[in-house]
């Protein structure tokens, strides 16, 4: 027990769609700490596995195909294995995608990891008509293999046992692949040089692995080696050998991959037995319709429409329940407490409780949305949606997967920004996170409906529709601009496996929904809450000092508050060209907290109840149709809410949150102004 202070740590690795998240949940009981890997926006999940009273830390590595330096995810995985030295790396291998997943397993073995293989989805392999001799597999690669079915839990007990055993019996199989005489000779030569000149390196990494990577020309390893005192000598030697190899076998990198795959195929051939003729594949069949050239895209839109219906309409009773409980019940309780100073009552009732309410009322919609989305995702459909629209996004230097944050963004921008992390390339991921807020979220709709309904009359429907389209177009254009300036770099392309369709799993869906909802609550909740309190503060105080809670109901008083003064300042300066009323400008300011506040604060500012606001706007001619449309566009584009900005900060850092704030406000200003000027030239008013 020399290392008592150090917790036993294991890592989970696997190619995408092998069932890794399900295995993670099975091992840890579903409870996880979710955050980012340092310095990047790649999700890191850590949980605890409890067996026989021992506590083992389980780290979920990103889903990867290989361990190269080309992709951030792969670098993260290999650096973790080398630097943190997990006691065991559980490599999850899919029985229905054996070649590709074994290829990764061999790569992990070469890195010197203490591997346990989890042969998952054996039920599906049986259904497809083949059997895998896992004992033989174990024999051939020299590390334990445990067959499992993650969905039912079959084999999980055995997996835990095997992990515990493997912690104490390290098995290293770094020589699992024989690259043939020519390459092996080169490898040994480099290995010798490394052991002689850089023993410290050979302690951290297996020397054979370094040698291989130098032959492949791996940029990360070449960089690390060059920094060593003896670096130049090693690199020179490697380059010399690379050149000699190149003449004999062509590009060393391709050759090495090919040799490794040949080893994989050898193993697969030895362990897989076909026991039944293959039948028509359900996945291929469904794809022939779901990605059909005419109906494919309408089907995707239909699915998304039903998802929104589920999120927005079916969640209504829950949202109202929260509303009633907080804004009436709790609110009244606080008002009923006697003996509190006036300002405190108002602070609690109009600040704190309104703030809590603003967060919680949103929660049912978000949760329902995540639920519906998780089902579509678990079935495997979201990958097809990305496939369908990829071409459009490609034109704007974005991957098809960028459509998913935008779709989610139509519900709420906060999880939209969050969803960008599913994109592999760092540049594309950052760009997508920055443009996701341009999707017109659910909270903006009431603003459009109120103003459009009051001013635009018959064309309100088209106007609202056009704003949704405008949001998407702007997102794509801004995306292209960002990709041409800040986030340059070749497109990572769109090479991905299309996962087989599966029946959605209740526990999988439930856990995903819960994790995401929880995250929304903690990350967005605190910010919305604080924002509401600040708005309250700015409304009940002014240059004269404390105005009293009456300011929230009395438009004359509100005019004297900081918020009112700011609005008037805005209306008379930057917004003077737009022709908006100062009250509309103040409402925009309140809208920073959350867009739906725009309507309620307009109601307060015009001194009417929310149900009358449409009439008031119509009767008092607050807007002309043109200024109304410009205002709606402004609401669409300028910062969606501080919670979204907070999420951008969380994902990309403060710098980019500020960038988002600036570009959105500027863009909103430019677009609204263009609408007004072009509109008036065209003769609209």
């Amino acid at each position, binding site marked *: 027990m020399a290392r008592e202070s150090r917790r036993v740590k294991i890592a989970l690795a696997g190619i995408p769609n092998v069932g890794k998240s399900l295995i993670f949940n099975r091992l840890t009981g579903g409870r996880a700490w979710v955050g980012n890997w340092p310095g990047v926006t790649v999700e890191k999940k850590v949980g605890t596995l409890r067996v026989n009273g021992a506590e083992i830390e389980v780290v979920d590595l990103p889903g990867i*195909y*290989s361990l*190269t330096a*080309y*992709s951030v995810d792969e670098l993260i995985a290999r650096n973790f294995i080398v630097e943190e030295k997990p006691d065991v790396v559980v490599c999850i291998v899919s029985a*229905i*995608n*054996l*070649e*590709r997943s074994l*290829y990764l397993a061999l790569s992990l073995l070469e890195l010197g990891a203490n591997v346990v293989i989890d042969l998952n989805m054996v039920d599906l392999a049986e259904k497809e008509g083949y059997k895998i001799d896992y004992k033989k597999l174990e024999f051939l690669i020299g590390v334990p293999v445990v067959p499992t079915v993650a969905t039912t839990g079959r084999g999980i007990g055995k997996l835990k046992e095997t992990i515990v055993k493997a912690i104490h019996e390290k098995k290293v199989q770094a020589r699992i692949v024989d690259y043939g005489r020519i390459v092996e000779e080169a490898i040994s030569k480099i290995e010798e040089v490394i052991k002689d000149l850089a023993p410290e390196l050979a302690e951290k990494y297996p020397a054979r692995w370094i040698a291989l990577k130098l032959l492949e020309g791996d940029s990360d390893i070449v960089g690390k080696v060059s920094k060593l005192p003896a670096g130049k000598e090693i690199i020179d030697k490697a380059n010399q050998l690379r050149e000699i190899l190149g003449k004999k076998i062509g590009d060393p*990198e*391709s050759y090495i*991959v*090919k040799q490794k*795959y040949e080893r*994989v195929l050898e193993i697969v051939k030895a362990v897989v037995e076909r026991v039944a003729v293959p039948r028509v594949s359900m*996945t*291929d069949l469904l*794809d*022939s319709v779901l*990605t*059909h*050239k*005419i109906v*494919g*895209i309408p089907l995707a839109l239909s699915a998304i429409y039903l998802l929104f219906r589920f999120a927005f309409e079916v969640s209504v009773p829950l949202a109202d329940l929260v509303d009633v409980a907080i804004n009436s019940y709790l609110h009244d309780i606080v008002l009923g407490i006697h003996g509190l100073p006036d300002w405190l009552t108002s602070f609690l009732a109009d600040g704190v409780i309104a703030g809590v309410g603003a967060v919680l009322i949103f929660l049912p919609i978000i949760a329902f949305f995540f639920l519906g989305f998780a089902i579509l995702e678990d079935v495997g459909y979201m990958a097809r949606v990305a*496939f*369908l*629209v*990829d*071409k*459009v996004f*490609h034109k704007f230097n974005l991957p*098809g997967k960028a459509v998913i944050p935008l779709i989610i963004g139509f519900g709420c921008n906060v999880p939209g920004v969050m969803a960008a992390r599913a994109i592999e390339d760092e540049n594309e991921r950052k760009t997508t996170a920055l443009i996701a807020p341009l999707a017109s979220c659910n909270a903006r709709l009431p603003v459009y409906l109120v103003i459009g309904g009051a001013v635009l009359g018959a064309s309100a429907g088209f106007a609202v529709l056009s704003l949704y389209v405008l949001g998407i177009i702007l997102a794509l254009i801004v995306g292209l601009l960002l990709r041409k300036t800040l986030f340059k770099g*070749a497109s*990572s*392309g*769109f*090479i*991905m*496996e*299309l*996962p*087989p369709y599966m029946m959605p799993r209740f526990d999988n869906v439930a856990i995903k929904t819960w994790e995401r909802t929880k995250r929304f609550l903690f990350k967005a909740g605190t910010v919305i809450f604080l924002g509401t309190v600040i708005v309250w503060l700015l409304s009940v105080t002014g240059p004269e000092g404390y105005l009293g809670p009456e300011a929230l109901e009395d438009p004359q008083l509100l005019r004297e508050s900081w918020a009112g003064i700011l609005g008037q300042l805005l209306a008379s300066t930057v917004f003077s060209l737009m022709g908006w009323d100062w009250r509309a400008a103040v409402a925009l300011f309140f809208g920073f907290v959350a867009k739906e506040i725009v309507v309620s604060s307009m109601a307060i500012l015009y001194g009417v109840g929310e149900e009358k606001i449409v009439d008031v706007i119509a009767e008092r001619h607050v807007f002309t149709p043109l200024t109304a449309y410009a205002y709606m566009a402004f609401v669409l584009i300028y910062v969606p809410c501080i919670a979204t900005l907070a999420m951008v900060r969380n994902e990309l850092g403060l710098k980019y949150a500020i960038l988002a704030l600036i570009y959105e406000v500027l863009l909103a200003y430019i677009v609204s102004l263009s609408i007004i000027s072009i509109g008036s030239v065209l003769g609209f008013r």
Partner: protein
Amino acid sequence: MAKVGRIYRVVRVEGAGLVKRRILDLGLLPGLEIKVVRKAPLGDPIEIVAKGNPISIRKAEAEKIILEEVKG
């Protein structure tokens, strides 16, 4: 350019960096037979099936895979 429904053999993989390596890591290696299954409704990307599961790939990247048609 490869046609939907036809079977091809990989001759070699060109290009560089992540794209090339990803193609190789997915096992699309010289000598392997692949089938072009379908195109996306807008014409790009395309879906190909080699060993195991289907892969979707943009035409621009698929062009890096040099193919020869397998006479059926």
